[in-house]
């Protein structure tokens, strides 16, 4: 049942994680975050995939047995919307940081500590 | 209901003890003198001194506590005496045991100090300090010696100890108690305030220490107290270690023997300073005391 898509999804997640852990620039970290979210969404969709079946749009030719499992796709829709909202929120906060700190380097954004 | 026989005995013993106490002080002075090859005053000299002091026209007082001190000291000595079995007269000794008598013998110290402190004289304050320190120093070995004794005989009551010693032989015959006797003897030296430990009233340094302010009848009171104390302590020593006595004469001989040991030691040794005394007491006598105690447990 482990199909190729899982490896794709997991590698995307790891790339995203790598970006967050290594890149010093906040924007790059946010990009990493959204890559990870896409990876998760891919995983979510591939969970519902049944090979050899078509998209779950019921029309005359395609019944419940010919279509793939529709629920994960519904979930992914919500997840994508949430991803977008989070990224938009993050970018607006990043703008405030740049305005106030004058830098986006993660090392320097450390006023709140200890 | 007062049994008159006991009252008579008490009065008789008190007079006898005071008289013998003065004689002991006389002997002490006389023996010291003879050792230093001088003639020394007659044995009854202390009695004359006390009577002279009592005869003085007026004496100085510094307030109520100053007077209360010597009175309390003498009273305590008398009380202590009443609880020691003097030869065949039991007096009150059946009502108290070793620990009570040991504490009663220490109350006069408090009386003298009360008087000395209230006199406000710095020398007397120094005397009080030294008296307290000596007492603190000697208390541990003193306690250990008493504990060894009690553990061996298994009882606290003086009368029973005397009875046991009559039957089973004096305590000094028992090896462990002999060690205890040595410890007790060193402590005894300090209790009497004789030479190596007479730091309390070191004549040269702080001129008679606590007694410096005393004169007239206060001094007389203190002299009589010292006499009774001397008699009581020697009797205590005799009762504990030398098997008490069936009659007064035998007790007297033992008391004088004990006194002479103390005098001989006193006339040889120079005076300790107070912290040397403390260190000394907590070294040798305490070790000996612990040995005696462990042997008898």
């Amino acid at each position, binding site marked *: 049942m482990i199909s190729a898509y899982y490896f794709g999804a997991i590698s995307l*997640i790891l790339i995203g*994680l790598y970006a*967050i852990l290594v890149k010093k620039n*906040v924007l790059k*970290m*946010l990009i990493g*975050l959204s890559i*990870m*979210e896409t*990876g*998760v969404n891919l*995983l*979510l969709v591939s*969970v519902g995939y049944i090979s050899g079946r078509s998209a779950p749009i019921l029309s005359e030719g395609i019944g419940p047995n010919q279509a793939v499992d529709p*629920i*994960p796709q519904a*979930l992914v829709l*919500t*997840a994508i919307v*949430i991803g977008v*909202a*989070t990224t938009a*929120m*993050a970018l*607006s*906060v*990043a703008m*405030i*940081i740049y305005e*106030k*700190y004058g830098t986006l380097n993660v090392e320097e*954004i*450390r*006023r*709140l*500590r200890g | 209901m007062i049994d008159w026989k006991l009252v008579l005995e008490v009065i008789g013993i008190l007079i006898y003890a005071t008289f013998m106490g003065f004689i002991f002080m006389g002997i002490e002075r006389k023996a010291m003198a003879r050792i230093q090859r001088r003639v020394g005053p007659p044995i009854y000299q202390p009695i004359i001194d006390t009577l002279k002091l009592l005869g003085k026209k007026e004496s100085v007082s510094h307030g109520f506590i100053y007077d209360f001190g010597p009175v309390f000291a003498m009273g305590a000595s008398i009380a202590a005496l009443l609880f020691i079995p003097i030869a065949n007269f039991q007096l009150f000794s059946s009502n108290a045991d070793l620990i009570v008598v040991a504490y009663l013998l220490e109350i006069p110290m408090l009386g003298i100090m009360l008087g000395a402190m209230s006199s406000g004289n710095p020398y007397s304050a120094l005397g009080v300090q030294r008296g307290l320190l000596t007492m603190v120093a000697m208390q541990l070995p003193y306690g250990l010696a008493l504990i060894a004794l009690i553990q061996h005989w298994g009882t606290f009551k003086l009368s029973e100890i005397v009875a046991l010693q009559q039957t089973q032989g004096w305590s000094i015959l028992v090896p462990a108690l002999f060690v205890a006797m040595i410890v007790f003897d060193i402590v005894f030296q300090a209790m009497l305030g004789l030479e190596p430990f007479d730091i309390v009233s070191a004549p040269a340094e702080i001129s008679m220490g606590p007694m410096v302010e005393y004169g007239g009848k206060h001094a007389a009171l203190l002299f009589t107290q010292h006499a009774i104390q001397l008699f009581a302590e020697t009797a205590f020593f005799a009762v504990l270690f030398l098997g008490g006595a069936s009659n007064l004469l035998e007790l007297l001989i033992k008391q004088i023997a004990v006194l002479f040991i103390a005098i001989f030691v006193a006339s040889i040794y120079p005076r300790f300073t107070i912290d040397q005394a403390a260190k000394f007491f907590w070294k040798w006598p305490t070790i000996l005391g612990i040995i005696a105690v462990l042997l008898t447990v």
Partner: protein
Amino acid sequence: MNGQYASLLIALPLISAFFVPLIKGLGKKAVKYYLVLITALQTGIAAWVFQEVYTTGKPIIVMAGAWRPPVGINLYIGHFAALFVLIVAVVSFLMAVFSIRAISVDPIDKYAMLFLLVMLGATGMIATGDIFNLFVFMEITAISAYALTAYNKTGEAAEASIKYIILGGIGSSFFLIGIALIYGSLGTLNMAQIAQLAGGMDATVAQVGLALIVFGLAVEAELFPLNAWAPDAYQAAPHPITAMFSAFVVKAGLYALARILYLMQAVSSWHSVLKLLIIMATLTVFVAEFAALRQKNVKRMIAYSSIAQIGLIGLAFALGTQSGVDAGVFHMVNHAIVKALLFLAVGHVAVSLGGAEMEKFEGLGKRMPLTAFAITVGAIAAVGIPLFNVFWSKLRILLATLGAGYSWAAAVVLIASVVEAVYYFRLIHTMWFAGEGERISEGLAVSLMLLFLAALVIVIGVYPDYAWSIAQKAGNDIFNVADYIKNVPLMGVGA
């Protein structure tokens, strides 16, 4: 008024959130009072639901769109949910009243909307019976929390918010992966059905799925290595929001963690997950308490103390015994009250004296005696002194921990609470016995609220029976999964 009106709990904040821009036209003051009105309404409904559930004893099941589970999403308002929805509503109401005075930064309508969304999210997380729905509500809460943290538009607020976003983002992504795995193997999203089928999953997928879900929720529930964002978020957020954070936002995450944990009891590696959680919870208590020891900023200090107490609740839940869960719920209730009281009071001081540094608190007893008294009651209660409410729940938790055999965990928690006593009493000493100052006027509304909360603390402390019985029913609701499954009318269809 049958059970269906309970869905208003979710609907009301949502609808009123979208009406806010209209109210904005009437002026800034109107928005604030509107907020107070809505939260008051929400409290009314929540109180009615609480009374309904606790008298009838049966949970209220609300089915979205009348679809019966597992096809439709259902709200399961059992004893715990009823209790905690009421707490969410009450604390939101109090903070709404406090916001009137505390919030001066201009886009007040945005604040009102986000405030309602946070309340909605928390209520949703507690009430939902479907794990994806749980994820959605968690994201709603999270995003509005990110926005509210950055609301003050200062450098620190933005920094705190970015930290919260990145860590929260990672956490929720892994949570979603966990859901994907569980959906993949069980084919259902409804919690009751998952509980039924959990035994059948194959071991590795179950273990990885459970671990990832627990990891995702642990980030939200501030367990040890994952709670680095929490102190900054608490410190930088506006004062009413910090109180809401500690009173219920984090607790909703903790509840979700506990709910899923106990649902997946049948999973083979359940006990090793519990052991891991116990270690993390104990470390949370230990690190947070020691971190609070030499704090200069009182708000950050109380944030650490709140994290530690939440770690303690996490420990109670992770014990896996009925007494542990009951104690944990009781501590949740007490902690919500005490921390709401403390953050409200500290916020009030920060608002009136301009800042929450320790110097501002010197001689507070003379300048703001009522607030100082409130902080003292809160601090003494938080330390766990008898005749105050937290004592009973802390005692219960420790007895449960020792009962479950984790004496080392109890020892660590107790050492940590000694440290907690030290820094709280240092604060009390600075307030009452150091420093000078003449008395300044304290707002009537805030004072009333402080007195109400302080009175609540002492009343529960002196007579804890009623609170304990509620906590027991709520604890049973989480622990006893069998009757959770029985209550949910499953249609019996499924992969």
